[in-house]
């Protein structure tokens, strides 16, 4: 099976202090119809990895090494014009904050329709029909296209974001902590929806999260990041069921389990930095 996305030794540094490697030699593969979760704490480089794929790194950061190969093409070698053609069309994106990612003064139907007009040239009745069917796919009645974002709940806004991201039937979906701001029952619904869409549309999903519970629910493969580097990766059953790296084990040990049987154990970073150096 050929990879949809192949990260090869991606390395990202701040322009002003290039010796600080925020993302260091990160390599992994994502296949169509599969979900790869990138998991780590704040500052582990997981969001920067996602932003690098889309070419959305801030100007203060630069990629100094490595390739991002999507459908056989190195995304970093593309012009910003070419990248715009891919972003939103072949690669969909969902972010954490559904309120700040939507424009408050535009109807949600218009916002979903924008990329359909931009990439597929849809207008008028055809556009309206497509927007309505997208809303229905994510579980929102089609007439909600005329609502403004503040008229929707947090979960509905995130559904609108998902409708936007899948509008052009992308080959890959990047979701950066899409359920972190949501209530637990809404989170469960959104995860289920994403998983169904992934299967139905045969998308590859790159899912950024800090929550191992979420990982266990939706991942096929897991990439564990710590201080910019991948410490462990592999199929979800292996990484969560039989972690090989002390950091993965330590991170799992501080997740409270729902049965309350496992004692909580915070991470001993001093030990870890010593122990992690082979």
């Amino acid at each position, binding site marked *: 099976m050929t990879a949809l996305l192949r990260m090869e030794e991606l390395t990202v540094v701040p322009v002003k202090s290039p010796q600080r490697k925020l993302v260091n030699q990160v390599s992994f593969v994502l296949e169509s119809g599969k979900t790869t979760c990138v998991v780590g704490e704040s500052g582990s480089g997981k969001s920067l990895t996602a932003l690098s794929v889309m070419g959305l790194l801030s100007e203060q950061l630069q990629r100094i090494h490595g390739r991002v190969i999507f459908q056989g093409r190195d995304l970093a070698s593309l012009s910003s014009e070419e990248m715009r053609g891919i972003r939103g069309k072949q690669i969909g994106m969902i972010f954490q904050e559904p309120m700040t990612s939507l424009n408050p003064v535009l109807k949600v139907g218009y916002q979903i329709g924008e990329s359909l007009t931009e990439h597929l040239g849809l207008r008028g009745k055809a556009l309206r029909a497509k927007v309505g069917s997208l809303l229905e796919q994510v579980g929102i009645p089609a007439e909600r296209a005329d609502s403004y974002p503040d008229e929707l709940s947090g979960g509905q806004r995130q559904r609108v974001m998902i409708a936007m991201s899948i509008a052009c039937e992308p080959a890959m979906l990047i979701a950066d902590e899409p359920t972190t701001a949501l209530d637990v029952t*809404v989170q469960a619904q959104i995860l289920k929806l994403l998983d169904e869409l992934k299967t139905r549309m045969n998308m590859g999903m790159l899912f950024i999260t800090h*929550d191992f519970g979420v990982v266990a629910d939706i991942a096929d493969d897991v990439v564990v990041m710590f201080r910019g580097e991948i410490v462990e990766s592999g199929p979800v059953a292996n990484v969560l069921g039989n972690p090989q790296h002390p950091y993965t084990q330590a991170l799992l040990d501080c997740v409270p389990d729902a049965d309350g049987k496992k004692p909580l154990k915070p991470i001993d970073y001093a030990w870890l930095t010593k122990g992690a150096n082979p």
Partner: protein
Amino acid sequence: MSEAILVARHLVKTYPQRGGLFGLGQQKVKALDDVSIQLNAGETLAVVGESGSGKSTLARCLLQLLPLDSGEVQFQGHDLAKLTGKELRAIRRDLQMVFQDPFASLNPRMRVGEIIAEGLLIHDLGTASEQQRKVVQMVKRVGLSEADLQKYPHEFSGGQRQRIGIARALVLEPKVVVCDEPVSALDVSIQAQILLLLRELQQEMQLSYLFITHDLRVVRHIADQVAVMYKGRVVEQGDVDSLYQSPQQEYTRNLLNAIPGRRPLAGLAAAG
């Protein structure tokens, strides 16, 4: 059965909400709709619920930070609503709060030493040197150093700020601490540190915690008793083991089933 230290009976709190055309109409939203809870001395009562369930309103009403429409809150036999301003201020020493957002709840223009000492000054507890000694002792107890007292909040990480917030509340040696989502803004590794710290301090200082949270995994670890809130009402309450093992209400079951990774992780642990 330990004795009750904080008892709330039939609390009702409504907020006016603008609605209708151009917001001209006024409706009332019941944030607390006949809520009764009981916190036992030395125990932790977790109040769980989703956004808008009224759990934070409950915390504020219990501490008389928000006025109630009706109902009564009894702390060690005193009806808090019947106290004079002066008496209430005095009793506040025993009722402290730890807030969710460690970035918003510390005054950025005060040094950490001043932040922690402020309560001692207000309540006029001990001489200046005794106060200083208590502050130093407390800051060390929560895992920071004496040198940190000279610093400002922005110099600390989220987890460290939450330690400062805990020191500020506990330096007064309160009896009841209301913790409003104290770990939900923190990374999971930092969350574990803070939960363990809170538990150690509870044992050392015989504290009773009212712990507000939306995270049912955290509840399982820290609570003795649980009250589940939904739309301003307590739909179910009981001790943590029986509530998790045999939830009586549909809503509680839905909440428990929505915990991410519950079945797969448990399965993996059993296999591994």
